[in-house]
């Protein structure tokens, strides 16, 4: 589904086993790219990516409040794929002091990103609400906790979130 959205090509879904590591993906070097597949409607893999991220960051000695911000972003993005999309994946890359979390899915895409970013806006189905999701706070939570958030979405094709966290500056914390 290579397609041109606002920020160019949407990354094609890479099918890999959970937790597979790939060195120097996307032409970058020195980092480690770790993939987690996600399936729409299936909570069984929910949180696998954010959990792995938490332990990797803890092992690197990243401050607890920065780990918390990164994990909130990763978990909310994972849940969004499971609730709103068909299938997708989360991967994260730690390069020096920069963490990049990329969550990409195969649709349905977001028609109005401005509206989706509004706190309280939700199209979550009833089954998701029963599980306590669908308060329309997920994307606002990600925005609040990330140092940078880029959303690239093409209706009918898919959505990619690129979340950047500066691991070295707890003073950037948006939440105490």
């Amino acid at each position, binding site marked *: 589904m290579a397609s041109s959205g606002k920020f160019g090509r949407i990354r094609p879904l890479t099918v890999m086993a959970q937790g597979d590591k790939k060195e120097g993906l996307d032409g970058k070097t020195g980092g480690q790219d770790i993939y987690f597949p996600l399936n729409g409607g299936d909570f069984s893999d929910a949180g696998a990516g954010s959990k792995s991220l938490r332990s990797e960051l803890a092992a690197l000695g990243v401050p607890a409040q920065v780990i*918390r911000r990164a994990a909130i972003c990763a*978990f909310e993005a994972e849940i969004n794929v499971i609730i709103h999309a068909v299938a997708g994946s989360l991967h994260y890359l730690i390069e020096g002091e920069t963490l990049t979390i990329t969550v990409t899915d195969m649709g349905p895409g977001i028609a109005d990103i401005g509206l989706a970013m509004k706190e309280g806006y939700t199209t979550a189905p009833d089954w998701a609400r029963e*599980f*306590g999701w669908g308060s329309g706070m997920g994307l606002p*939570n990600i925005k609040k906790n990330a140092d940078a958030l880029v959303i690239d979405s093409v209706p009918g094709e898919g959505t990619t979130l690129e979340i950047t966290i500066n691991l070295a500056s707890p003073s950037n914390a948006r939440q105490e």
Partner: protein
Amino acid sequence: MTVQELIGRLGLELKNNGCVEAAINGCYASDMLSDVLANGKEGNIWITRQTHPNVVAVAAIKGLSGIIVTGGRQIEAETLEKAASECIPVMSTPLQTYDMVGMVYNLLLKNEER
């Protein structure tokens, strides 16, 4: 106040092998998981009716001291196991959320006054 003390004072049923020596510094009550991710504070005890494994991820990410499930709801085995592996105590009460919140509120208030 520790989770262990809270269990004793309120007659809660501990459902797993969580870390009951953790200190409680307050409480958050909500059934919406993004709300807890946004507004729960590290060390808070969480009162909810949600029982599926996603609650464990929320509690672990936020560093909550424990989860109290109200209304005597059946808690999935996977939730209890995952919580134990994250050292999070999961407790059960037959009381509904309103009553449980009131009791925890009074207890933590009295504890502060001492």
